[in-house]
């Protein structure tokens, strides 16, 4: 695969799909992201963990520019995220996002939630968008609810619809922002099952989550963030058995203690 060039700088490895270099972000005076350097290969599955307020959500929200970074560069699939609106829209088409609170559109049916963006952004014919959406709804096992409204579904069902809605855009990258945190315990598994299925299909995934079981079984790499920095990253095996930094050890002892 060709080396991607932007502004004359060759930076990408062949398979690199996300490239962050020296990324900083501030909320007013508060320094949320400090010198983030991150490279993600195509098809890589990454779990990002860390204490609350560590900047992990902010980081993945910068990757589709729901948040703006103030310093450094972020390049997604060869397109650099800057103030350029065209580029932002191009990146957002290729990057799906699943939110903690699902954020389904309550005035549209499940099927309409899934077909809206393919029809209006990808300009797909309605019939095709619908039959594709039904395939994805089938995949998250919720096709029988296609004509209901989100308010009529349980949290777990809504989150599965949200995943299908993102997949309908055929994204190259999927971002998950604590997808199971707002769910009742008995519904966590149905959502994780869908995510495990997605991981095995070769999707590039970045997932902010506290589900360490998911991290162990699915992730290629676990990233630990604290106070806006990437403190440590490693394969799940080494990350959980042999954490290098004290902060990681403290965090792991807190979340794995019971």
């Amino acid at each position, binding site marked *: 695969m060709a080396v991607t060039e932007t502004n004359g700088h060759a930076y990408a490895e062949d398979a690199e799909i996300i490239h962050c270099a020296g990324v900083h972000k501030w909320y007013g005076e508060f320094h949320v992201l400090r010198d983030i350097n991150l490279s993600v290969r195509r098809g890589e599955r990454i779990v990002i963990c860390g204490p609350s307020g560590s900047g992990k959500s902010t980081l993945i929200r910068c990757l589709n520019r729901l948040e703006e970074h103030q310093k450094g560069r972020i390049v997604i699939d060869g397109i650099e995220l800057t103030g350029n609106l065209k580029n932002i829209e191009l990146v957002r*088409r290729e990057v799906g996002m699943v939110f903690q609170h699902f*954020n389904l*559109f309550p005035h549209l049916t499940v099927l309409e939630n899934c077909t*809206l963006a393919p029809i209006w*952004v990808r300009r797909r014919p309605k019939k095709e968008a619908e039959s594709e959406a039904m395939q994805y709804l089938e995949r998250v096992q919720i096709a029988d609810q296609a004509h209901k*409204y989100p*308010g009529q579904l349980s949290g777990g069902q809504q989150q599965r619809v949200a995943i299908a809605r993102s997949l309908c*855009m055929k994204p190259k990258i999927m971002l998950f922002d604590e997808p199971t945190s707002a769910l009742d315990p008995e519904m966590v598994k149905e959502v994780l099952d869908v995510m495990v299925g997605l991981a095995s299909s070769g999707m590039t995934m970045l997932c902010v989550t506290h589900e360490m079981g998911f991290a162990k079984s699915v992730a290629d790499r676990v990233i630990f963030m604290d106070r806006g920095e990437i403190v440590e990253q490693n394969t799940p095996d080494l990350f959980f058995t042999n954490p290098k930094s004290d902060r990681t050890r403290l965090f792991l002892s807190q979340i794995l203690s019971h």
Partner: protein
Amino acid sequence: MSGNADTTPLAAGERPPSTVVGPLAWLRANLFNTWYNAILTILIAWAIIRTVPPLIEWAVIDAAGFGATSEMCREATGACWGFVREKLRFILFGTYPYDEQWRPLATVALFILLLGASCDRRFWKPWFGLVWLAGLVAAGVLMWGGVFGLTYVENTLWGGLPLTLILSVIGLSVAFPISILLALGRRSDMPAVKAICVAYIELIRGVPLISLLFMASVMFPLFLPTGVTIDKLLRAQIAFIMFAAAYMAEAIRGGLQAIPKGQYEAADGLGLSYWQKMGKIILPQALAISIPPLVNTFISFFKDTSLVIIIGLYDLLGTAKAALTDPAWRGYYREAYLFIGLIYWAFCYFMSKYSQWLEKDLNRMRRR
């Protein structure tokens, strides 16, 4: 064995005691449940007894009926409904040429038909805008004439109900899209757009409608080059549109603020453009929330059209007032105002009822 009284099955057909159900219990629970409610109930009952029978006496028993002449009216101690019959066409159609008054009647019927059809959500499609446009053109042809063998009628002769409907329906339907743009502009990230929208809304909301109408009728022509005149009715119409847009924009802004941030983020995350996001996701939800304050604005503007009387246009209220100046029928203002009050009320009550239904209908599918 459980000795718990709660689990003892009720005897078949056992009824709750009469202290809980039945008319006496209802009275107790709703009218006499506390000592101050009991006092209020008695006071209101007394007020009803004092006012309602005399009203019926005046309006029905002692009244001269619709067929009464002015002589018969002078003898009657009650209401004179003959006045309303005598002046009906003048109140409804003003100074529009008497023999041509089927034209404003047809215009009113056309408006009511269009409004009625617009209530059906199946017609909420882009093509229905064309139907409205055709309807407005037809109304214009009917009112002005000058084509198809209809005699030309200057719009200074228009008056009564058609004028009220024209001012309010055209005013509100033109103001509505403008108000959406203003509301979006007020929440825009672009400082210039935001400043213009805020300035406009605050400026217009800060002056009384009457002063705006005066400006439109007296001051505005001063700024026009000599020889150029804009019709008085059109100027009043523009003043109405400007005023209504500012108020409706604030109602819609309230709705926009109620939409959770997650909805914007989900739409952004899917790659929707600004206008797609607003048109498909945000506005459909925000407008549904804005229905009560919007209808509030609609109703008050429908009635505020009566203010055009101060710049010499005769809407429904104006024609009723003018009808009272007839020496033969002097002094029947109670009948006149009751009659037009009833017409205004019928329209406003319908708007209110329709909005309640619409609100329910839009919410029905969402929350269950």
